């Protein structure tokens, strides 16, 4: 990247590192960090939405909804999350292709599962085989986001369900005494108050979500783990300008430090947020703040 990098004399000096760290492949490595941040930025709100719907279903008065919500929460929590990641990536892809196949090729008469193959008509392929490379990558990323949202939605549903139950019952009874309908009580009394009870669980979930991002690698995305393995592996002078031995240990040490810094910063920010939210609340935290101020 720098002009002095063309000079072979830099090899062996410390400046060599600045050349090595700015090669094209290293740029892909740095971009992969933004992929992780993008995944977090999209997944967190979507998972919260899934969680809200799940928690609503779990405390619904209609029995089938309640069973559905509770099964969703219990199933995802009982099975390792990585198994869900591996499952949903294939399952979602096949589900989308199957639906498109039914819609686009109604006169197809062969079975879709032929032995060990999953065959749909060309028009139903996702993304289309003619699509450019970036479409394929975006589609893979999109599947990963949905998978993360489904898995973490269940965890969020569990936290929000607990938060909803923690709201003092007297509040809901008062609302009923004032003649509010069930729906009004839910939206005007329960939902605004549950957040302060749910926040400790949700901030924990955020930490867990950060620590789950390296699993993107298993979903076939070229993320930071992929590039750390690629770049750290032994390079010979035949294939690159910057040969080196097996440096994968150092690349993963760097990732370790990156995640440590990331979780530490989030921890500090979330602590501040909690302080703000408990201000003036009728909880022990709010009480402690009131006493400290007095």
């Amino acid at each position, binding site marked *: 990247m720098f002009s002095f990098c063309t000079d072979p004399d830099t090899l062996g000096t410390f400046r060599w590192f600045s050349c090595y760290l700015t090669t094209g492949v290293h740029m892909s490595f740095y971009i992969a960090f933004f992929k992780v941040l993008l995944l977090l930025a999209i997944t967190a709100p979507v998972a919260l939405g899934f969680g809200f719907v799940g928690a609503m279903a779990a405390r619904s008065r209609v029995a089938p909804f309640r069973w559905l919500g509770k099964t969703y929460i219990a199933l995802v929590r009982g099975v390792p999350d990585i198994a869900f990641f591996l499952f949903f990536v294939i*399952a979602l892809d096949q589900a989308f292709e199957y639906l498109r196949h039914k819609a686009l090729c109604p006169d197809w008469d062969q079975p879709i599962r032929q032995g060990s193959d999953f065959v749909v008509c060309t028009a139903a392929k996702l993304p289309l085989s003619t699509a450019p490379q970036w479409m394929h990558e975006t589609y893979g990323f999109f599947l990963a986001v949905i998978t993360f949202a489904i898995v973490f939605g269940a965890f969020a549903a569990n936290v929000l369900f607990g938060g909803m139950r923690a709201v003092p019952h007297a509040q809901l009874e008062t609302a009923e005494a004032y003649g509010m309908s069930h729906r009004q009580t839910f939206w005007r009394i329960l939902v605004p108050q549950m957040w302060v009870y749910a926040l400790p669980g949700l901030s924990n979930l955020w930490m867990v979500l950060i*620590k789950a991002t390296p699993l993107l690698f298993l979903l076939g995305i070229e993320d930071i783990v992929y590039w750390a393995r690629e770049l750290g592996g032994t390079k010979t002078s035949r294939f690159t300008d910057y040969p080196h031995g097996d440096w994968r240990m150092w690349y993963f040490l760097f990732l370790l430090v990156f995640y440590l810094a990331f979780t530490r910063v989030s921890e500090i920010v979330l602590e501040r947020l909690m302080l703000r939210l408990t201000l003036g609340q009728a909880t022990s935290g709010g009480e402690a703040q009131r006493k400290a101020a007095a």
Partner: protein
Amino acid sequence: MSDCLQTIQDYGLRSLGFGERLLPREGFTFCEQATLIGSGMIWNIYFGVMALLTGFFLATALAVAKGSPNPWFRKPAEWFIFVFRGSPLFIQFFFAYFLFLSLKNVNPFFSPFTAAWLGALIVLFLNTAAYTGEIFYGALRSIPKGDTEAADAYGMSGWPRFKRIIWPTMLRLAWPAYTNEAIFLFHATTLVFFSGFPAWQQRGDALYYASYFADKTFNPFVPYPILAGYFILFTLVIVFVFGLIGKHLNRHLPQPERQRIRLRPNLIR
């Protein structure tokens, strides 16, 4: 049915290297999938139980060290817990594997560490010790003041005070959270063979075989539900066993004060 018995004979201990050498290649039956995935569960149980047993002792030491007024004990414990709780287990596995790989080049003593049975176990041991240490530390701080005051009044100090008063109370208070930790540690064992550690001669854990079948058949709807079934079963076993121990720890309390074990998702990695 007799086919299935034959399959269980061939593949029941495949993950340990006994029985049929080759994995099935085509025409996968439900029985084959269930047997091989079940065979892989042996590894998950091995990692889970061993890490939990060894981690328990280090965790107790860490909790006491973190609560110690002496900074020479407190600071290392705090840093240890911070490093292992603040970073993803997946990255820890990768880093440890490549670290052991480099050490192996220096000294052949480290060559068993690059195998999953030892290398991954060490990572899981340190990791669960850090998480459990934090749980125990929290419990240590919430021991009722009256308990320690009573111990002082009886003239207990040092080791007997710790062994007879502080440690049992700490365990009792930490037990519900520790049950969670055990469940999620058990789930985390599935990461081992996806994070650098090679499955030598295709001897892998349950998820390794499940993903093998899913790749070969391109049909995730059979192997993963089988895997899920096994894990839900073993999660229930953990809840049951830990419930029994928890009951034992709380046996002196009047009925209504016994805490129910609440399963909260705050300890996944």
